[in-house]
């Protein structure tokens, strides 16, 4: 996967370029945010207070809390494969991208912008440790290169 970090700790979860779904030939058949009988990422309630209140905590109380292995959605491709996209980081789920539900092609055409999967906000205290646990772009590319050379 791939994460986009903002200065303000907000994280956007997207598919990394090496993800199978982004390889040529794959067509997305279905994207489902219903994780289990009781849990749908679409029903994530993030209640807001008026713009003038600074108590951001209230907004977060309703939102679903995710761990690294929490599934965000399941995507099935036309060739019968099914992929589960995981959160990869701990934090509160702010929103899932409903645009890819109505337009699944977006996920493949613009995976790192309009085709994002979800927005997650980690806890303030965990922000730093999370960033440190991830690969930089360069490191990621090195991993990919190693994989390709070992595969051939």
């Amino acid at each position, binding site marked *: 996967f791939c994460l986009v970090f*903002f*200065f*303000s*700790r*907000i994280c*956007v979860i997207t598919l990394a370029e090496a993800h199978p779904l982004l390889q040529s030939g794959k067509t997305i058949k279905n994207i489902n945010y219903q994780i289990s009988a009781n849990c749908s990422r679409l029903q994530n309630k*993030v*209640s*807001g*207070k*008026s*713009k003038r209140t*600074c108590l*951001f905590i209230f*907004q977060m109380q309703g939102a679903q809390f995710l761990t690294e292995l929490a599934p965000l959605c399941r995507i099935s491709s036309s060739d019968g494969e099914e992929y589960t996209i995981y959160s990869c980081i701990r934090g509160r789920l*702010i*929103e899932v*991208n409903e*645009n890819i539900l109505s337009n699944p092609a*977006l996920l493949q055409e*613009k995976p790192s*912008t*309009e085709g*994002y999967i979800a*927005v997650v*906000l980690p806890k303030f205290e965990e922000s730093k440790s999370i960033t440190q646990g991830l690969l930089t772009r360069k490191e990621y590319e090195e991993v990919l290169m190693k994989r390709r050379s070992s595969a051939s």
Partner: protein
Amino acid sequence: MSSLTEKDRPIVQLLLSTGTCPRCVLRFCCVGSQLLYRHPHQDLMKDLQEFLKNSQEKEDTVCLDVADPPCKRIRLEHREEGADDLNHNGAIPQLPSAGTGNTATESSAGKVCNVCLGILQEFCEADFVKKVCQKVNSADYQFTSFVFSVSLPPQLSVRERAAWLGVKQQMRNLGLPLAKDDIVQLKEAYKWIIHPQLSEELGVPADGKSLFEVSVVFAHPETDEECHFLATACPDCFKPAKNKQSVFTRMAVIKALERIKEEDFLKHFPCPPSSPKNLCDALEIQCNNGAVFVAGRYNKYSRNLPQTPWIIDGERKLESSVEELISEHLMAEFKADSFNFSSSGREDVDVRTLGNGRPFAMELVNPRRIHFTAEEMKRLQQAINDSSDKIQVRDLQLVTREAIGRMKEGEEEKTKTYSALIWTDKAIQREDITFLDDIKELKLDQKTPLRVLHRRPLAVRCRLIHTMKSEYIDEHHFRLHLKTQAGTYIKEFVHGDFGRTKPNIGSLLNRTADILELDVESVDVDWPPTLAD
């Protein structure tokens, strides 16, 4: 104006004998003449003594009233009659000091009043007035009037109630009716006496609406001790004490006094109250000036300046801010304790504010100086402008608190115009962007931008782009002038914010677009009033 009459005699008798000061006695007799209270307390004491002795004397020099002589005589006669009546009926007050009245007043003389604890005694004297005025003058405030506020120890309410219940009881025992008039409030009487003195010393009038406040806090060492019985009688009126403060706050005590039954009160507290051991202390004498408001418009020419200080975890991320550059000079001139900066909207660190600038208001808290001529304001404006090339201010002027509302109204209702430098990934030709000029009232749906989601609630906002005007630069750049509704996120309109602002320039042009530079061209609020240069 009223003065003492026969019906007051038992009250005067009772209170003086228990150690009440003359002014409090007058209060309980509902005497409403302000002038009377200002008489020196020794004179008042003598007058009261005379009043009590009155029945024995034909020639009465007493008049507790400063009205015309004719009235004097009438009242004197009336008193004599009344006195005879009293003797006739044999309704003699039961206190041992009934006859002479001297013993009664003796017990009052020189003691701390059992009702006001010295407030209407020592704290009305010239010495105290001088002390207060010294404090005021040394604090070096500019003012044209004053309001004097006092904070009294809570047990004064208790003692007031005790004195009242004592009087009530006494009248009941004597079979006399109790007047339904209101007792003169302690604070009111105090202000009657002290206002003219303060006014004279300070050279300015007392005015309830004045912005300059002189406040005195009085305390008494026995507050907790004397109020303690209330806590047992009405425990739910008292909340646990915060920090080292007493649980017996004025509000809590008053509430408890409303609740407590007369019998319970009489059981636990002497009525009338006993003489205290101590005088009140004047704990604090403080001065405070009401806030003044300075308004103006600012231009921001730097792309590296936040509007308010940018500090994370105690570390300053960027040097200075619009707020600090403006407040520095104002704080120094007005000699205020602190300030509150507000403006009609904000711009990002990297956005310039051009044109007429953005309206702002600075509240200066507790300023020592409040009078500034138009000339002086102009010079202050020049000083600010000379000190920095990152910002400039105009139309700097003093405004009222109410005027701030106009500015905030501008934030939500008025339009703004912008100029954006836009980059596109795929090439564009002149013809590709001209259609933008024809789009009017474009409706946007903007989800809360990702870059502010950590401090703003998630929501979708509908905003209008009223007009646009494009200026072609080259195959990958063009400038766009836009006039938008207040609250529109321009940057997000350009790059789309991961598709969360729809439509956006990228979607309109069918390309990927990003914003390189943004300038605010105008903030269309016609406040504060433009000043001629």
